[in-house]
């Protein structure tokens, strides 16, 4: 059972992100290369965390499909750094025992030669606390 | 039986006010008949950046129990930058006084605009109460005064 008591403050502390800096320009989601695979998009993470609407994010597919490519972080004109916030939501889930989506031992099987280095690194990042 | 006469302690407070904002704020408090303790005495200076630490120490030396400095809000200084310098000077000076063991509540900086008569009166009232509670300034005064 997921701990749904993760608060906005927890996420801000883990990520160092200040959601109030966002000016809702959507540049993060405009930049996102994996937009279609995400049920919640970078700008929504910022907005929903800001509003304290966190439970849906903890259950979301997006925290696993986010590539951690950091494009949104790079492009954000206000340095809000959505990627870090998504990472924080993911960590909030992963840090609960047994909630990791991917076991370390499963990863080698999934690797293929075309997979970019970054994807492998981010896969490990998503693996466990 | 002799009863020692106990005089109630009324603190002496010196307020340095910049001419353009806080002194005008004090005037506005007056125009609006907003009461604050009579033991607050105002000294007019052109700008908060004119307040030399020597003046503050001098006030304590001569028996002031609290010293407050008021200036324009940062960004609104009549001379554009004066209160920015004053802010750094007072912060470091107050920290030094605290370091020497002088009660930190005896010194204060408050930004009061010409429109903030209410704030001026409230600030002075509050500061006077704080000093009243702290009691007499004994740590930083010229003891010759008592002779």
């Amino acid at each position, binding site marked *: 059972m997921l701990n749904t008591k993760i608060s906005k403050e927890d996420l801000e502390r883990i990520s160092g992100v200040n959601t109030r*800096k966002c*000016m*809702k*320009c*959507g*540049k993060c*989601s*405009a*930049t*996102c290369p994996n*937009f*279609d695979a995400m049920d919640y*998009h970078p*700008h*929504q993470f910022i907005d929903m965390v800001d509003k304290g609407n966190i439970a849906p994010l903890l259950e979301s597919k997006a925290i696993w499909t986010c590539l951690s490519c950091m494009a949104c972080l790079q492009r*954000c*004109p*206000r*340095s809000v750094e959505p990627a870090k916030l998504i990472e924080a939501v993911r960590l909030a889930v992963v840090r609960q025992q047994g909630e990791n989506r991917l076991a370390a031992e499963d990863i080698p099987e999934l690797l293929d030669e075309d997979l970019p280095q970054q994807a492998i690194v981010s896969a490990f990042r998503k693996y466990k606390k | 039986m002799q009863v020692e006469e106990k005089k109630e302690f009324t603190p*002496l407070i*010196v307020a340095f006010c910049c*001419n353009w904002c806080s*002194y005008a704020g*004090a*005037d506005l*408090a*007056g*125009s609006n*008949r*907003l*009461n*604050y303790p*009579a033991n607050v*005495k*105002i*000294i*007019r*200076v*052109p*700008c908060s*950046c*004119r*307040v*030399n*630490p*020597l*003046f503050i120490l*001098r*006030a304590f030396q*001569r028996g*002031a129990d609290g010293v407050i400095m008021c200036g324009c809000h940062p*960004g*609104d200084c*009549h*001379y*554009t*930058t*004066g209160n920015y*310098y004053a802010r750094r000077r007072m912060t470091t000076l107050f920290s030094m006084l605290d370091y020497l063991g002088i009660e930190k509540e005896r010194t204060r900086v408050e930004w009061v605009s010409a429109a903030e008569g209410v704030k001026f*009166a409230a600030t002075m009232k509050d500061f006077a109460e704080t000093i009243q509670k702290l009691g007499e300034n004994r740590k930083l005064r010229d003891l010759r005064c008592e002779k």
Partner: protein
Amino acid sequence: MQRIGVFVCWCGTNIAATVDVAKVAETLKSEPGVVFATDYQYMCSASGQEIIKNAIKEHNLTGVVICSCSPRMHEATFRKTVQAAGINPYMLEIANIREQCSWIHKDKEEATEKAIILGRAAIAKVHLNAPLTSMESPVVKRALVIGGGIAGIQTALDIADAGFEVDIVEKQPTIGGKMAQLDKTFPTLDCAACILTPKMVDAGSNDKVNLYTYCEVDKVEGFVGNFKVTIKQKPRYVDATKCTGCGECTTKCPSRKNPNEFNMGFDNRGAVYIPFAQAVPKVATIDPDDCIYMKTGKCGLCAKVCTAGAINYEQKEEFITKEYGAIVVATGYNQIKPTEFEEYGYNNYKDVVTSLEFERLMNAAGPTGGHLLRPSNGKEPKKIVFVQCVGSRGQSCRDKSYCSKICCMYTAKHAMLVKDHYPDVDVTVFYIDVRTPGKNFDEFYRRAVEEFGVHYIKGMVGKVEEEDGVLKVQASDLLANAQIHMDADMVVLAAAIEPDKSARPLATMLTASMDTNDFFTEAHAKLRPVESPTAGIFLSGTCQGPKDIPETVSQASACAAKVIGLLAKDHLLCNPCVAHSNETLCNGCSTCANVCPYGAITYEDRLVMDKGVRETRRIAVVNEAVCQGCGACTVTCPSGAMDLKGFANRQIMAEVDAICR
């Protein structure tokens, strides 16, 4: 020892009801130096002032203390009074026993006691007062305007209109500035040239206005009323007095591959050129970097075709020094080149342009004759995407932190003009916020949406890539929570505007302060918006912050009013309560100059006699015409050499002592 008179005002019952005025006068009479004390119903009245004047004469007073209302109320009145009786107006101090005493206290005993203490403090101060004389400095009745855009032109014309001479220094060969490059202007859509060029002609032909085009400010000395400015005339290689502006040379020049700055590089000009047809002055200029003769010594075609004999390859830089009473900064802005925003592909794709470039593409006098064509293939675009806030409102190193203010409106204008000229073209605008405060501005924007059918989408563009000659735009539609992919033939970037690069070194020359974005700082954000804190320096137009044309013109005229107010005076009376450096105490350490917001402190080597020794020392010198008397220097000076007249260290300490007695 001073002979001090104390005058306690009743202010009707305002003071007298809560303060025992007679007791105050009586008590203060026994203060040292007080030779006369009285109270009266209204000190500020004619008869009250008479009492003061008589007492001064009768008792040979050297100093006056008035216990009355706030000095902010009647200090000026009483200064005149004492001056009329023959003593220096600065030998007066006011004890504020109304606003800061009678009005706020109810207990009469308490208020009376406080009034006495306030009176004592004023007496203690007067003891240390010294007569002060306001310095007078003459005003040179000529203004300099730096920058010849719409702001500079408007300011100059208004100043000239008041009968004062005014010089405009413009670094380009012609005045006109950015506005000359614009097509139409919002919110009325009248053409920029139609409203600007008459003003340019006015400026050129007005005999009170001198144009120094192709010139730069080289050096500024002096202070308010008395600036001495050296202007550098860059060589045009054309004798401006002979050139008739016929343009023959510009058509014959064989060096043709030089990007035309006026048309944002969309076409080429000759090495000898006149920026545009309505240029003022209409004089040709040779760019030595492009000229074949200047580079190789061969050609000289322009000299041959010039019947006026105006071409002069030997022309040299010249320096002109003139005096001015006031200087107006009107250095304007530039639009940033969004080269660092690689996601928009500005560097790679010709069809991604900035809005100023787009302005030229739409302009009837532009490279395409006003026919909107794609720069890549010269075909008409069918779909245009506008992106707002490019480089504005950001916090990263490539962004400006401020809102560029004009983009929302000109983007709406562009979108509307495109739809007006080419109704079939699909126009989409990506925005973060649409900001349209201004008369008829929001109506204008709504017309673009409602009448012309421009699509406004909330969200930014994340990526622009070209595929088969089509720009693929990837963007957010935040309200639909979707990432959109759309094709476009052109992408127009509303890139941020920034102050002109020449502003920073100019600010240093003028000792005028700037913010971190290099916009000039105004003396007061609300109450003195067209003056720099440095006396005699005025701000016109976008050098102070982003502005549209209506706002620029109103600020330019406001600025002119301030300049005229200054130039109308024959002399400036300086505030005598200024800083003063004691030469025997001064260390020459420069700390005071570091905190002076006005650049009023300079240093000179002076022969000083101190403790029986005569030696040359570096000494701080305060320019009393420039100093405004804030006192920042007096506190930063460790040796106490710097003091403030009228608010001297000893005066303030005497007040402290009197209060704490």
